[in-house]
């Protein structure tokens, strides 16, 4: 009997986990990035309360993604994690400060509250930039010899990764601003609309540069996008992306409440699809494929049993918690 190939299914699970993380922690990190610019302390209370019930659930996906990489694609874990050792470390430390700010800001005296505002803001900002550096390092590829990463601990710090870090900051902040349009009203909502407009400009410029730069990083990416007939088949990707950006912009102008956020989620989806097209079928970009990095089929099968029970549970409670906390967040109604 032919052994079953579990790699496609595990690729979907890993891809889904990372994608859910980016979307969901993306908007609550974005709220943190915008936090210090908020018009008032009352606005900050509402901003924090809008994500307080769900932010830690959102970070579940980070754990799922990390463990899926370790267990199902151990070779990729062994090469990628050492290469981005410092950005991951810095991200985790930043997430600690941001996480305790949720708990302690509401317990602090009015005089010391600004410290937790800063912990929340800079924690969110630094975690986002660190993730952006990881993304950049990932796309530009790693120095690999056999089963080992052979570069230095600071290979991740380049012009390209700096640009992806800035792009991700704009992207998450846009998600955060459009989330606030959906979840708030009045002065704070108007402020979020203003933020969303200029952030959209920042996203378009920075993502545009990253998209044009990426094919020059690696000949294979160039061939993937610009050889015939790929260029015709893949042309909808940038066209749909630009159309979505325009659509989000218009929905902000029309003072729509849900559409800007949903449109930004769709925009992120297009970015993710573009990335997948560029890098397929490699999990360690430009050197190791998904199949070469995969654990033994029997290990993957064993892990699948638990994961297929667990995933619907996570999706279920996530959907339920968003449903419970649906609607506008108002002053004085707090989760803490």
């Amino acid at each position: 009997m032919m052994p079953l190939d579990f790699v496609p299914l595990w690729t979907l699970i890993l891809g889904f986990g990372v994608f859910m993380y980016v979307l969901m922690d993306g908007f609550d990190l974005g709220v943190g990035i915008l936090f210090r610019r908020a018009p008032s302390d009352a606005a900050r209370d509402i901003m924090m309360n809008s994500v307080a019930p769900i932010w830690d659930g959102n970070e579940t996906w980070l754990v799922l993604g990390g463990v899926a990489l370790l267990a199902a694609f151990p070779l990729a874990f062994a090469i990628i994690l050492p290469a981005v050792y410092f950005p991951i470390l810095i991200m985790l430390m930043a997430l600690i400060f941001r996480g305790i700010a949720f708990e302690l800001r509401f317990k602090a005296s009015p005089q010391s509250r600004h410290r937790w505002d800063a912990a929340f803001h800079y924690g969110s900002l630094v975690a986002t930039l660190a993730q952006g550096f990881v993304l950049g390092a990932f796309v530009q590829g790693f120095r690999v010899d056999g089963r080992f990463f052979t570069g230095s601990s600071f290979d991740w710090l380049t012009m390209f990764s700096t640009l992806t870090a800035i792009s991700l900051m704009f992207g998450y902040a846009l998600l955060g601003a459009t989330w606030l349009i959906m979840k708030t009203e009045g002065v704070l909502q108007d402020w979020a609309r203003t933020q969303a407009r200029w952030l959209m400009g920042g996203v378009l410029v920075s993502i545009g540069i990253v998209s044009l730069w990426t094919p020059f990083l690696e000949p294979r990416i160039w061939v993937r996008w610009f050889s015939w007939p790929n260029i015709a088949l893949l042309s909808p990707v940038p066209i749909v992306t630009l159309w979505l950006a325009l659509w989000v912009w218009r929905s902000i102008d029309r003072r729509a409440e849900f559409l800007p956020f949903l449109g930004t989620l769709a925009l992120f989806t297009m970015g993710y699809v573009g990335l997948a097209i560029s890098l397929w079928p490699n999990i360690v970009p430009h050197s190791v494929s998904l199949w070469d990095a995969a654990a033994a089929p029997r290990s993957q099968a064993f892990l699948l049993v638990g994961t297929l029970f667990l995933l619907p549970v996570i999706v279920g409670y996530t959907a339920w918690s968003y449903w419970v906390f649906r609607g506008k967040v108002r002053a004085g109604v707090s989760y803490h």
Partner: protein
Amino acid sequence: MRPGRQPWVIYGLMRTKDAVTPSLGGSDVLVSLIIYMLVYLVVYPVTLYYMIGLVRAGPETEEEVDRPIEGLQRPLPARAAAGAGVPSGTAIAAEQRP
């Protein structure tokens, strides 16, 4: 004295020295260890400070408890719910007591 699990990282299969990440230098590890220590040295005392503050303030009275979400803004029938949880025999016995 038992040597613990060392020198194995996977007992009987892989030595710890063979499991070390090749790209990671001693200074990298030292720097990250110092970062961990600093974060713990900040987070632990600060959290402890707030915990002591909470203990000193004592428990909140019933009126001070926040209704956590909008759906729960109406007052809960707390006493009726508490009464229902007690076996009826005990409740009656308590009432009959002078």
